[in-house]
């Protein structure tokens, strides 16, 4: 079973040299800490920066330099700043190679829900709907089950959708899965997790073909 950092570390393996990447709030943000040494990626934050760097040293925080999670950040050499329309031009115009975001629920057809629990929590979708509607490569980073132990990988989402048939890959604390026409295809198991464990924790259609390797982290 992975912790949140483990999920981030596994996702970092998906990155390719030269990619522009948008990381959502939460687990996705941690991906930036695990970039392989031999590749260069550029992080975009939808509030208007390309080339986001690490957090500033204490005392060097600039209130005019934050990410989409409103955290103080730094800018790398070669970064650029732009307005929100240009930022979403990058996103909708498919100039970003990878989007990593969290989810409350994912359906086995690639539907995703992550912005609203009717009557209880309505924070808003932020940039998530634009991201999922346009990105060609979306990885969801989340725990396999919710706090009540219920599967977050469903036959059908129960919460209001963020986007339809858009998620391509899911990395959870238990597994790596690909969304296919026939449901979630199990690609890898987390260390110490069995195929049966994953089957039990997955409500949506799960496809298990042949030997499922353990992740190498």
């Amino acid at each position: 079973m992975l912790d949140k950092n483990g999920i981030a570390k596994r996702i970092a393996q998906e990155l390719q040299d030269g990619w522009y990447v948008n990381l959502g709030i939460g687990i996705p943000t941690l991906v930036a800490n695990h970039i392989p040494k031999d590749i260069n990626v550029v992080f975009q934050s939808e509030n208007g920066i390309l080339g986001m760097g690490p957090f500033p040293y204490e005392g060097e925080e600039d209130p005019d330099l934050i990410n989409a999670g409103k955290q103080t950040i730094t800018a790398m050499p070669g970064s650029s700043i732009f307005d929100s329309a240009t930022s979403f031009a990058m996103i909708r115009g498919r100039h970003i190679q990878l989007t990593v975001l969290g989810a409350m629920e994912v359906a086995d057809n690639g539907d995703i829900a992550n912005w609203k629990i009717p009557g209880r929590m309505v924070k808003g979708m932020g940039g998530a709907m634009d991201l999922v509607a346009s990105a060609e490569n979306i990885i969801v980073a989340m725990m396999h089950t919710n706090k009540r132990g219920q599967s977050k990988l469903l036959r059908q989402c129960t919460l209001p959708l963020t986007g339809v048939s858009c998620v391509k890959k899911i990395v959870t604390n238990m597994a790596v899965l690909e969304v296919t026409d026939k449901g979630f295809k199990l690609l890898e198991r987390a260390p110490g997790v069995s195929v049966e464990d994953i089957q039990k924790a997955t409500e949506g259609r799960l496809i298990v073909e042949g030997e499922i390797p353990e992740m190498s982290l």
Partner: protein
Amino acid sequence: MNKVVANAQAAIEGIKDGMTLMLGGFGLCGIPENCISALVEANIRDLTCISNNAGVDDFGLGLLLQQKQIKKMISSYVGENDEFERQMLSGELEVDLIPQGTLATRCQMAGAGIPAFFTPAGYGTEVAFGKEVRYFDGKPHILEHAFEAEFAIVKAWKGDRFGNLIFKGTARNFNPLMAMAGKITIAEVEELVEPGELDANFIHTPGVFVQRIFQGSNYEKRIEQRTVRPRN
């Protein structure tokens, strides 16, 4: 060609109960602090505010919410604000949540005389309810409309008497878009300079979009999430 007004009180002249305002900023970054205070002070009510976020409980648009001056918020993300959540769930506050890119483009197109456009964002979600759907290149898109706002209020880093503006860092965000979109656009700036001092080649908002400008004061520039890393 002198668009300078004395202060925030003078700048907001003509903003009346029930009007629609655009307010720049992302979180608390790049928000028009002086004008928000002036709106609180003037107690203008029943406002419709188009702004990406709603501030926090005791800063930014949260100050207007506290006084119940806002009738409707049009935003993309409104977390981190308990009073907002309370007013929304109780039905006191009308809320229209829309995708951030759609929000940005609806501002941009308002300023550009493009009344409507198709975007893929929100298709298949409740955002698309009642909206026209059309396929382009095999992909579904929904029709979205440009906003209309009587006033846009933006915050810039520097500006000149002609209304030319430049922004600093990610405090740019929605500000230049909204500056283009307001019927009357008010810009508050940290530093007001003479025409010619800003390099014409690097103006973010050409002066034609700005009707009133003033040098603000006492900027607090509150940080919402102070995140740092250790020194070694």
